[in-house]
């Protein structure tokens, strides 16, 4: 057995290093400094001078053990490859159910539901201009709509990712459907994506929001309720993706995300919940840019930091609480409208970075997302990109296969330090909630976004087809799939019928109890949302009620 650690001086090392330095300097001439997106300088070569494995047990260890750098499970992708979780959502509940059954027939075990932007903004179909209805996701306004979406889907077997910002009406509809079908809530698994309201205030203003304080209350109620009644559900997905897509550097995005998770955990602890009761159900969602090594290092460093934070700062004793489970999505911002098929290559590289980073679940973007929601063909290529990486390329054969690289280990340590600096900045501002309230996070992200754009324009950051390797006269893009106007108008008619046929008094009573709960700290707002959904209330009515009681979440925007 070879000695696992390399010690310097090695015989001949210093001499060889000196010679290389001379040759390199002579041949390279003057060189501009290279820094990655997080601002970390990148050397031309890494050697045991930079990282020599001496700290292996403390810095890396083994998969499934602390410090968790190499993965959260002993078997990682060799035991079970990542989950392919493609986002789907288009048109009516019937359209959605049709697409869903195709995916399930193809072997998917996990599904997602992306609602229409009108749903994100807290509206029913009859409250928005029909021109833009259903063009970005499915229109789901009632428990009845959800039943249609999930027809022939066994909720006790299929994991569901709902893009469902607070007050989590889609989940309330899903729980209603399960109850009516006799599926025990204990058997339901899935995730409340878009539950991270802080990320909506700082980076992605597409979601319904009530004022900050109310949002904080509703999320904590939601975690407490799901913990008690649907223990297999992940009530929180802490989102770094929005922030990085909005312009945060990879280190900033990871730092802010960990700070957000700390904030939510501390809010639960303040509520009297034990860390080990809720932390095993925390999950994360990140962006994967094309900055390949930086992204891998970001995930490895983040995983190590979270294990430490969960254990030391939050006081979790259960190893499941330390696990940094994350879903990742390839970066849409890195994709280009110019020569769009090039995006297939970009997505493959981004996906590889996420896989090497040890993700649990992956969404690969369609190459045509720069034009619209992906076409069926682009979605198939995106899924097959994952299939090729998993089945053909051998990426799942070895756990953390880049671990031990002089470069990657050095970079992981440097990213770790950068992320810690971000956490220290947020801590100094009083934590993530306070930092968002003050606009600090928004300002940092805005500055990074502008700085990156300037690099693209100066040509320092190359983008193929945009600032280099351009072609004239690009071929026209194929026509889009858009839901039929009549189908959307029929949705409006259906909602009207639904409202006419439901027991109105029960709906009124449930909405009144929801309104009262907003002012009663002993009540659980999410529990009242579930009750209202079951009584027949619509998404728009539930959102309107809470917004009236808790205030509108004004964007905290600055330029």
């Amino acid at each position: 057995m070879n000695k696992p650690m390399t010690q310097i001086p090695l015989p001949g090392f210093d001499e060889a290093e000196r010679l290389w330095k001379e040759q390199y300097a002579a041949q390279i001439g003057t060189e501009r400094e290279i820094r990655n997106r997080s601002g970390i300088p990148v050397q031309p070569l890494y050697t045991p001078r930079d990282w020599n494995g001496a700290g292996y047990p403390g810095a890396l260890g083994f998969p499934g053990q602390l410090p968790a750098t190499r993965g959260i499970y002993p078997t990682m992708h060799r035991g079970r490859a990542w989950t392919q979780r493609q986002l789907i959502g288009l048109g009516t509940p019937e359209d959605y159910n049709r697409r869903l059954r195709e995916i399930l027939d193809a072997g998917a075990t996990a599904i997602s539901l992306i609602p229409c932007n009108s749903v994100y903004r807290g509206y029913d179909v009859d409250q928005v201009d029909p021109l833009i209805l259903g063009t970005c996701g499915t229109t789901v306004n009632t428990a009845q709509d959800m039943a249609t979406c999930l027809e022939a889907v066994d909720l006790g077997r299929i994991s569901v990712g709902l893009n469902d910002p607070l007050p989590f009406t889609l989940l309330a509809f899903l729980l209603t459907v399960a109850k009516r079908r006799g599926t025990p809530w204990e058997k339901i698994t899935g995730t409340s994506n878009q539950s991270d309201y802080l990320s909506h205030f700082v980076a992605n203003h597409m979601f319904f929001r009530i004022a900050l304080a109310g949002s904080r209350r509703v999320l904590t109620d939601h975690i407490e309720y799901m913990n008690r009644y649907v223990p297999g559900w992940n009530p929180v997905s802490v989102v770094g993706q929005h922030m990085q897509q909005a312009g945060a550097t990879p280190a900033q995005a990871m730092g802010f995300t960990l700070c957000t998770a700390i904030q939510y955990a501390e809010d639960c602890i303040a509520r009297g919940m034990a860390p080990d009761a809720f932390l095993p159900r925390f999950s994360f969602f990140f962006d994967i840019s094309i900055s390949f090594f930086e992204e891998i290092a970001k995930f490895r460093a983040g995983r190590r930091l979270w294990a430490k934070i969960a254990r030391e700062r939050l006081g979790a004793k259960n190893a499941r609480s330390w696990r940094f489970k994350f879903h990742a999505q390839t970066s849409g911002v890195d994709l280009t409208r110019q020569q769009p098929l090039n995006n297939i290559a970009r997505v493959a590289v981004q996906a590889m970075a996420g896989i090497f980073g040890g993700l649990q679940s992956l969404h690969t973007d369609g190459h045509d997302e720069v034009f619209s929601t992906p076409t069926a063909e682009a979605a198939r290529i995106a899924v097959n990109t994952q299939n090729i990486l998993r089945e053909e390329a051998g990426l799942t054969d070895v756990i953390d296969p880049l671990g031990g690289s002089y470069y990657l280990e050095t970079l992981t340590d440097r990213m770790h330090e950068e992320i810690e600096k971000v956490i220290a900045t947020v801590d100094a501002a009083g934590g993530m909630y306070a930092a968002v309230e003050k606009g600090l996070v928004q300002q940092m992200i805005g500055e990074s976004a502008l700085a990156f754009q300037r690099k693209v324009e100066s040509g320092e950051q190359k983008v193929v087809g945009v600032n280099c390797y351009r072609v004239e006269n690009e071929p026209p893009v194929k026509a889009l799939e858009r839901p039929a106007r009549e189908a959307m108008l029929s949705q409006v008619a259906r909602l009207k019928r639904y409202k006419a046929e439901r027991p109105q008094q029960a709906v009124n009573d449930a909405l009144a109890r929801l309104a009262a709960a907003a002012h009663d700290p002993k009540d659980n707002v999410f529990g009242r949302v579930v009750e209202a959904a079951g009584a027949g209330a619509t998404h728009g009515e539930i959102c309107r009620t809470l917004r009236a009681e808790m205030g509108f979440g004004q964007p905290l925007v600055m330029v």
Partner: protein
Amino acid sequence: MTVNEFARPPRVLITKIGLDGHDRGSRVVAAHLRDAGMEVIYTPPWQEISAVVKLAMEEDVDVIGVSSLATDHLLVPKLVQALRDAGLGDMPVIVGGIVPPDDEQALLAAGVARVFHPGSALEEISTLIRNVTSERRAKAA
């Protein structure tokens, strides 16, 4: 109107109408225009068309820039019409973001001055704004 009036920097309204709130593009463009010496009025997303018209009038802007990353650009022809109805038919409206080619043709036909796509240079945007501003002021003068 004096010669000085032409030297006055363009006043630009940067906004988002409809439902979507992805605002990286609108913020970056707004910050660039500000740094380029223009006066920028920036709104949060989700503006009503009537609110945009009112703001454009009250703030006496030269150009309206609408950012659209989902499908809210489909509403822009309604904005153009509302501007006409309000007597601001000469106000150039530019659109930036993810706009499919067929939709772009429809927007241009509806009177939109220009559609900028991802990958457009910030300089290109500020140059266009200066040009349409001078043209409009020259006509008004």
